[in-house]
């Protein structure tokens, strides 16, 4: 069972909800947590995993053997990203344009191209004090493409903790999505079973919610909504949810104390014990929505 927590608009409380949900789930279930916001991952600040496994990831970029290369120009011709240039007898490779597709390597008639890993980020994984198996993708500063890191992260599957005293009821994976509504969000949702949208009741929150809701609909994924900072705006998000058949599964009121606790690095369920019950109920509602 894989749950994606997404929002469209940034800063609506995606990570706050995802980490709290993971903590209550870990009471009874085996939980994996993937921080898929590879540009600005923050979940570790709240879940405090011991990240003891580090792996460099990136893309496979071509290297041309100048001895074997006869500058025929095939590679430059087929590269859709203009990452290889052949001028005169010289073949030049531009790593920062390469997408790592492998076409040049396969198509080189002289087999003069080999590939090596260009590191563009890393995946760190480990276990949190709550026994959550945690993994996070992190893109290196200055890089443009987060997708290769995200794809690796989804395959990484951090080892589940063997420390549970009772056998887990279920195995859950919770993915904290990046903001926005472009392809990294789609990639985060691909292969998931449910999408939980965290939004705020403002025109900005609604505008961006519509964007991500369209992606979940396109992928045929069931979804529900958490309204965070309930009370700051208007009722337009409520109306949209009714009209689009999106169940509102939880409302978190606007409360300065909550804002302060989160600012300091607490999760919601740590800041307010009552929230534990509310998040347990949220988890059960999500599971019920999926099995309908």
């Amino acid at each position, binding site marked *: 069972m894989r749950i994606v927590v997404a929002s469209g608009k940034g800063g609506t409380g995606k990570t706050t909800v995802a980490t709290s949900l993971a903590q209550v789930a870990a009471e009874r279930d085996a939980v994996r947590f993937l921080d898929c916001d590879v540009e600005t991952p923050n979940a570790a600040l709240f879940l405090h995993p011991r990240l003891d496994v580090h792996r460099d990831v990136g893309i496979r970029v071509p290297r041309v053997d100048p001895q074997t290369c006869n500058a025929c120009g095939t590679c430059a011709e087929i590269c859709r990203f203009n990452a290889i240039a052949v001028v005169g007898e010289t073949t030049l490779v531009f790593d920062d344009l390469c997408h790592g597709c492998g076409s040049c390597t*396969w198509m080189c008639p002289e087999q003069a191209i080999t590939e090596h890993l260009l590191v563009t980020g890393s995946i760190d994984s480990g276990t949190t004090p709550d026994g959550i198996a945690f993994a996070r993708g992190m893109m290196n500063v200055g890089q443009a493409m987060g997708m290769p890191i995200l794809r690796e992260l989804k395959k990484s599957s951090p080892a589940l903790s063997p420390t549970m005293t009772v056998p887990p009821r279920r195995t859950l994976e919770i993915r904290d999505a990046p903001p926005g509504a472009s392809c990294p969000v789609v990639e985060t949702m691909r292969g998931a079973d449910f999408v939980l949208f965290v939004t705020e009741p403002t025109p900005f929150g609604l505008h961006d919610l519509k964007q991500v809701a369209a992606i979940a609909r396109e992928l045929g994924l069931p979804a529900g909504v958490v309204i965070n900072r309930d009370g700051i705006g208007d009722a337009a998000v409520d109306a949209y949810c009714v009209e689009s058949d999106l169940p509102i599964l939880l409302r978190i009121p606007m409360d300065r104390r909550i804002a302060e606790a989160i600012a300091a690095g607490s999760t919601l369920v740590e800041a307010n014990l009552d929230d534990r019950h509310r998040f347990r109920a949220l988890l059960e509602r999500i599971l019920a929505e999926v099995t309908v």
Partner: protein
Amino acid sequence: MKQLVILSGKGGTGKTSVVAAFAHLASAGPFAGQVILADADVDAANLELVLHPKRLDTEPFRGGEVAVIDEDQCVQCGDCESICRFDAIVETDAGWIVDPVACEGCAACVHQCPTASIAMQEQTVGEYAYSDSLYGPLHHAHLYPGQESSGKLVTEVRQRACRQALDEQRPLVLIDGPPGIGCPVIAAVSGADLALLVTEPTVAGLQDLRRALQTLRHFGVPALVCINKADVYPVGAQGIDAYCRANGIDTVARVPFDPSVPGAMVAGAAVTAYRPDAPASLALSAVWQQVVAVLAKDLPGAAPAATVGDAARNNPD
């Protein structure tokens, strides 16, 4: 002509509310009639919810090409699936198809297909728009949900805004940047004259601010920092101050938490126009004055740090 880009790293820190306030403030002072606006947050384009643009021109935006399999010619060998590194070839009951969202547009499958059944097709992935708004000409765009290459669309929006500024000799382009630090952000900041980072005093805000500042440094763009909702967690605000001081960055201002900000958003107005005397409005006016002062000085471009990216650019072999 100067380009000012408003960024945040972390989303939801109030970037667009700051841009809207700046657009409003600029429309009154010495910059009246002098500013071009650009919304570079193309997958969450919210600036128009405040600026109420009247569209003058809309054009389709074509992204990269994606592969399409001709099902009549396809012999279902699956070669394409095995070579695709982007998991974009998917088996369905009807045979192999290309998932257009996962497709990177590399055409590796086109070259490998033994029956030449795969072709590349251009895609319309969004639209670019030019509008007349409450506070000046606005260049903006919408990326359709789930699409790729927003960096290219951001570049397009920015180039058009700059071209108009040059043609009409307007001295300032005000850019609402995207969150994060990847391709769209790089497209929004590279070559800009100044970036104002809007952050919040939270552990997550600081962590993302660091990454955003490193990115700006990498591309040699000078930065100022503004702490929004600074009073919510004073300890966090102090931490940001300390970090900025240690890195030689001016923390221009603190903006207090103020319900007028979401109030203005709901009213579809810039907070400085909605409640000019609200605490956030007064603070933002002060920030704007400081930003104008910095822009007025001829900014020496910060020297880009030598990093992995530069090394890769200059010395790939």
